[in-house]
């Protein structure tokens, strides 16, 4: 991103933040937020007990996509590095899990997550280093190269023995731990839910820490940040690695839940999907990533219901409407509405400061 672009995002984020800061005391805002999060967690815990198996599957996929988008968010939203290559991290994570579970080690599914995360972290760092030299669309092309390379590599007969080539790998569904009165779908949901909570909390913690502030400073004013002593190279590379780790873990979960991996599922169109989900959810917003996951899973279905032949066109129209109505994504929209409501409340409550008697 160029300086004007970064400035635009930063100014926008600052403006919205300042609106809410002025509207209410900070402590009240935090409490309301905690209430909302608590309510969401409770809803999330209860959901699989009341809905059908198929919907549980869909909700699990929503969480997985949300986690993948959060990974992209860390890199693009919080650190300003544009990536079109996250489908590759998702795919690497998925294949790591698939290979470990079915071919070589017959590993239990829960161990594949840290392995996938570690592999992707390393790949992310390896990519982050050369990416330091690139900006904006040039970085986009480099990451795009990765997205294109992955399916070809997976299919090539160099790696065929390990990856199963074009036929892909079929994975067995994990069973719930013995003794629990839930079925396999519900168990996978709770497993994913737990992972989601941990990863989202970690991301929130990271963003609020001084590392997070450094990362965002690099996005907003890279030269000033460097002048202030922030090691931009180190933070940018690390962010690449962490971002890849998040999306890689999401990929591993995806493989386990779908029970199948094939090379052409992880092409650059998936990257575009993640990007769209990120923007619609709200750049730089952690809960927005989850909304992005909802969008990526459900909107194509909605578009198809409207018209099977023109589902792509309907999808495009929905996307345009969303961007017109919510240019800063869902999170921005929520923030703006909250600020506007608070302003209304204040205007209704306050008396005029003074009355002119003249």
């Amino acid at each position, binding site marked *: *991103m*160029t*300086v004007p*672009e970064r400035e*635009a*995002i930063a100014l*926008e984020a600052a403006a919205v933040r300042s609106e809410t800061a002025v509207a209410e005391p900070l402590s009240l805002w935090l409490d309301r937020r905690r209430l909302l999060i608590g309510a969401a967690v409770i809803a999330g815990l209860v959901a699989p007990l009341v809905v059908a198996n198929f919907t549980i599957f869909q909700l699990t996929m929503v969480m997985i996509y949300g986690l993948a988008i959060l990974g992209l968010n860390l890199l*693009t939203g919080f650190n300003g590095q544009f990536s079109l290559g996250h489908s590759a991290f998702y795919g690497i994570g998925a294949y790591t899990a698939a290979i470990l579970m079915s071919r070589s080690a017959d590993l239990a599914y829960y161990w594949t997550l840290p392995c996938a995360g570690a592999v992707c972290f390393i790949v992310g760092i390896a990519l982050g280093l*050369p990416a330091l*030299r*690139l*900006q904006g*669309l*040039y970085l*986009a*092309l*480099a990451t*795009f*190269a990765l997205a*294109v*390379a992955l399916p*070809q*590599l997976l*299919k*090539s*007969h*160099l790696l065929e023995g390990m990856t199963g080539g074009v036929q892909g790998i079929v994975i067995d569904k994990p069973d719930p731990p013995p003794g629990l009165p839930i079925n396999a779908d519900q168990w996978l949901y709770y497993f994913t839910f737990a992972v989601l909570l941990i990863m989202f909390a970690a991301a929130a913690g990271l963003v609020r820490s001084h590392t997070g502030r450094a990362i965002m400073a690099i996005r907003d004013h890279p*030269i*000033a940040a460097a*002048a202030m002593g922030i090691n931009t190279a180190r933070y940018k590379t690390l962010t690449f690695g962490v971002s890849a780790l998040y999306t890689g873990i999401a990929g591993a979960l995806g493989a386990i839940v779908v029970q199948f991996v094939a090379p052409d599922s992880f092409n650059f169109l998936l990257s*575009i999907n993640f*990007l*769209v989900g*990120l*923007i*619609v959810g709200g*750049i730089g917003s952690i809960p927005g990533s989850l909304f992005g996951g909802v969008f990526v899973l459900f909107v194509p279905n909605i578009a198809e219901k409207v018209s099977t*032949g*023109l*589902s*792509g*066109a*309907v*999808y*495009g*129209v929905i*996307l*345009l409407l*969303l*961007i*017109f109505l919510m*240019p*800063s*994504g869902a999170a921005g929209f929520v923030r703006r509405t909250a600020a506007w409501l608070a302003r209304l409340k204040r205007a209704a409550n306050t008396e005029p400061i003074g009355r002119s008697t003249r």
Partner: protein
Amino acid sequence: MEQLLQQVVAGLATGAIYATMALAVVMVYQAIDHLNFAQGELATFSTFLAWQMIEWGWSYWAAFAITVAISFVIGVAIDRILFRPVRNAPILSQLVAFIALFSILNSSDGEIWNFTIKSFPTPFGTKPLFGSGLISTHQAGMVVVTLVMLVLLYLFFRGSRLGLAMRAAAANPEAARLVGIRVGWMIALGWGLSTAIGAVAGMLIAPVVFLDPNMMLGVLLYGFAGAVLGGLSSPGGAVLGGFAVGIIENLAGTFIPFVGQELKLTVALIVIVAVLMVRPAGIFGRVAVSRV
């Protein structure tokens, strides 16, 4: 050695396809500072329009001229109607608008004109050029037209007032407004130009690859790669980049043993990324230096 020559020439021929697309990509990038994902689909749509006119019996050149004119208008209209409202949104939101446009066009093309491939006529004929088995007259014609377009654009931007105004609007919108340039319309003009160039590109490419709704997807990617390689701020660089991508890809596919065939595109992109490492703004691009 002969195979090398053959592959280079074949690479030039396919590279001409990428070069025309790269030119359109750079055109709109100069105007709005971002990549238009829907470029390829707009070109495909324009080519379908031309095909439809030819089906109705109109002459090739009439269809060609009218299509270019309509495409220009469509480009301006898309900018004024779709992108003006989101001009102040974060850049990434505008990106989503491009993706939406892509989706709408691609889907509509398939629905209106179905997926059977269609031949598209060429004014250059398809005999082998000079009797050699390397390149056809049409492909040679494509190269010539691309270069001609490039020269015309160069003259327009350097030599005419309107071109100067457009460059000013893109370089420094605030200052341009202050001297009375209507920046909004300059951007719309940039859009119109790029859509028109895209239409020409589509009509040149279709005879080679056959017309179908998914015709331009791969071409846009290669065109984008070529534009980045050459430098997004340099139309000449973009054209050269397009040719280079075609040649690199062919050579990679032929001469890298064992995996060349399967990983052609990957290798080409790796080469481009390697070049970008050395010249981060493309070979001919100018690195933007910003004041702190």
